[in-house]
């Protein structure tokens, strides 16, 4: 088929390009729609099909509805502690203090939040939440629309983008970044999935809002589309990724299916039991119990299973008990969970417990950015901004989640930093910021990968290689990790790389060729997986979600820092964590217990 080059493809020019139509991308585009800048959202799916739609429990924010004395500083304390002290305190401060404004904006846009008797937004307790800097007991800080908060948020953002006249390139797939000779990002190569038309989307600012990559694991709560496309592109372009060893395993994925069961279930009073019917979290986290940090709960579950107290025939899961809450509460507060459980576990939680198991859920790592979404790289050990490249949401590592994200903080991250990036791009483009043009050679270079795949006449099957990749990640880089196992995993990935470079695209057609999309997605997954594997192997301590059997303790002396993965050298370096919030005293690292 046709070999693409800069002279046989079209160029479309924009001021700002947002790759990804989920929560963070649409919050960015909403900000830019009002600016008069020529903007487009490039989304491989119609925006309301993005994975934000699957978020359930809510958006955590100190709006002081449940507790009139609630304080964003308490939320900040929880978030810093939850991150196991490698979240950047300037960014966490920004998110927690700007949060209420962002949540009220969503309400004004029409988001159908559940309500309290006084008519305010309903808030529920979530894991890792406290009052008065951990001294005042459990807080209820997660703003909810029943258990469909992500759906309500994503649709509300899409609706308001319609209102503001945002420009969408729906079902367009971004393949690779275009870089000019100064290594500035000048846009992307992309194609229309519907027609197959390939184009150079040229832009002064390119925002990666491409979400997570949970599909590197075989068991994940993530949608099939969560393939880390933005990160894949930036790693191939030679830009670094930060904290890639930090993957959150959500305690309650439905056993077998992987679908998420919100932490809100435990917030509303549900709890986990083992085969003996024991509420085992009382042993592991005497104070917070089932509402300890997600990493803590997930590890406790795995230990119960490893010690033979798992449920079911194979003793390989535990139960989430909800029936004591009663049908009224479940139907009003957790209707979506009841539906999912009936469909995917064959269990009605009104009567029986749901079989659950820790399941890959969230990528804390990503492209390192500042609070304006500007991507960083490093040169000679010093941070340097990548001109033209931005990243927001799960794809980014700003870093507000550090080594472990608190429930409800991801939706807040999306809207706070989506908005911040939009504001910054407006400001900088109006004051002359921007990038130089790319040459034909630069554009052709970004077309290489696509041309190679299109030209393949033999090679490896996409589905097979994907399964192989996922099983390596699942087996060697799961909840508990060990150096010698991970070494095997890293070696296995080296073999897979050869297959990734030689995938066979059997179907060469243009119109809605999902085979081509899946092959390119797999290449992105691989880049993310490799970064994860090397970072996990190199970080020789246990912190947050990264739990090593061979290095059981947190090592602040050597590892109170971000890890930075360099995709060219395939090596890990260290990057400082920010401990300098502007309005509050630094939260110093402490032993983390719940």
């Amino acid at each position, binding site marked *: 088929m046709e070999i693409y080059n800069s002279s046989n493809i079209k160029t479309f020019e924009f001021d700002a390009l947002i790759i990804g139509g989920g929560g963070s991308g649409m919050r960015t585009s909403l900000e830019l729609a009002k600016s008069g800048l020529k903007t487009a959202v490039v989304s491989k799916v119609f925006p309301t099909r993005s994975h934000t*739609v699957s978020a359930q429990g809510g958006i955590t924010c100190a709006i002081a509805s449940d507790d009139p004395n609630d304080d964003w500083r308490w939320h900040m304390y929880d978030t810093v502690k939850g991150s196991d002290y490698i979240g950047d305190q300037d960014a966490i401060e920004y998110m927690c203090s700007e949060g209420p404004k962002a949540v009220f904006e969503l309400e004004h846009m*029409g988001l159908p939040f559940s309500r309290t008797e*006084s*008519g305010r937004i309903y808030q529920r307790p979530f894991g890792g939440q406290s009052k008065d800097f951990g001294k005042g007991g459990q807080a209820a800080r997660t703003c909810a629309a029943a258990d469909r908060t992500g759906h309500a948020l994503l649709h509300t953002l899409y609706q308001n983008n319609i*209102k503001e006249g945002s420009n969408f390139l729906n079902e367009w797939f971004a393949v690779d970044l275009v870089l000019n000779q100064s290594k500035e990002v000048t846009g992307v190569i992309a194609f229309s999935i519907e027609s197959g038309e390939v184009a150079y989307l040229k832009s002064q600012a390119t925002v990666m809002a491409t979400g997570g990559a949970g599909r590197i694991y075989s068991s994940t709560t993530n949608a099939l589309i969560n393939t880390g496309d933005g990160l894949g592109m930036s790693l191939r372009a030679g830009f670094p990724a930060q904290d890639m060893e930090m993957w959150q395993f959500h305690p309650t994925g439905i056993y077998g299916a992987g679908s998420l069961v919100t932490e809100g279930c435990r917030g509303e009073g549900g709890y986990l039991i083992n085969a003996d019917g024991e509420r085992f979290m009382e042993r592991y986290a005497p104070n917070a119990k089932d509402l300890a940090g997600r990493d803590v709960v997930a590890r406790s579950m795995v230990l119960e299973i490893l010690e033979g107290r798992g449920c079911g025939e194979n003793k390989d899961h535990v139960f989430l008990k909800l029936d004591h809450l009663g049908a009224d509460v479940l139907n009003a507060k957790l209707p979506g969970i009841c539906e999912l459980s009936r469909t995917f576990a064959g269990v009605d939680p009104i009567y029986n417990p749901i079989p659950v198991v820790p399941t890959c859920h969230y990528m804390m790592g990503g492209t390192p950015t500042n609070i304006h979404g500007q991507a960083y790289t490093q040169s000679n050990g010093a941070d340097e901004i990548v001109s033209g490249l931005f990243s927001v949401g799960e794809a980014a590592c700003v870093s507000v989640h550090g080594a472990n994200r608190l429930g409800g903080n991801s939706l807040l991250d999306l809207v706070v930093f989506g908005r911040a990036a939009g504001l910054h791009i407006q400001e900088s483009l109006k004051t002359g910021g921007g990038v130089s043009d790319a040459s034909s050679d630069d554009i052709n270079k970004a077309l290489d990968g696509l041309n190679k795949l299109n030209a393949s006449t033999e090679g490896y099957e996409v*589905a097979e290689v994907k399964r192989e990749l996922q099983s390596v990640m699942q087996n060697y880089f799961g909840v508990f990790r060990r150096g010698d196992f991970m070494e095997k995993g890293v070696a296995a990935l080296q073999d897979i790389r050869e297959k990734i470079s030689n995938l066979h695209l059997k179907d060469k057609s243009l119109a809605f060729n*999902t*085979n081509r999309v899946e092959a390119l997605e797999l290449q992105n997954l691989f880049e993310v997986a490799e970064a994860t594997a090397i970072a996990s192997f190199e970080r020789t301590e246990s912190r947050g979600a990264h739990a090593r059997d061979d290095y059981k303790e947190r090592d602040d002396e050597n590892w109170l820092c971000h890890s930075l993965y360099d995709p060219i050298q395939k090596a890990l370096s260290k990057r400082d964590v920010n401990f300098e919030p502007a309005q509050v005293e630094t939260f110093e690292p402490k032993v983390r217990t719940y």
Partner: protein
Amino acid sequence: MIDVNIYRYNPETDKFPYTQTYSIKKPEKDIMLLELLNILKEQDTSISYRRSCREGVCGSDGMNINGKNGLACITPISEVIKNNKIELRPLPGLPVIRDLVVDMTEFYAQYDKIKPFLQNDSVPPTEERLQTPGDRDKLDGLYECILCACCSTSCPSFWWNPDKFVGPAALLQAYRFIADSRDTKTSERLEALSDPFSVYRCHGIMNCVNVCPKDLNPNHAIGEIKSILLSNKKKQDIIISDGAN
């Protein structure tokens, strides 16, 4: 063995659509139809369909299953294997792009037309606008729509007039904003629906209710819109006749 009959059409190679039969060993445990399609796609990578969340919340994989619209990802195959066969066709009434993928432009255009966003003339407060739990309850059964188009593409009125009849999905959303105590454009919203086509082409045959994978009831919402329109009209008639006297 079961036979999965799939509607095939690739605009680059096929003059006409055709049905291709895939014979496959019946999986030992009950799986969702989407998983079955994924297995078939490994054998024939050219089969095209949309999918994303695989748990019934994103609305990507609406298709016509044995003659009835539904979401493949939450339809267990045990429920749809009839005489060892499953028939899969694209959602009816919309142009086919390829195989099970339809062009949803007209469907989305109707959604855009009803102004699916909250409109409120007043300056927003610094905090949230208050809403009583009772008023918020009125949005239940409305806001949960996932825009999968199963309802509108099972509606003969939408097949006939996809450009003029708003269709059940978008009407459900029209009513979602009419019913929202925070929205101040109720009369404009109703006015925009008062022509003979937008809402009145619904004849209440309930296909939409029958197929909705989220158990929503567009027919009820449409009934509510019609009855408000009619009672407003009666009021207007009374005012006009009063004036004449």
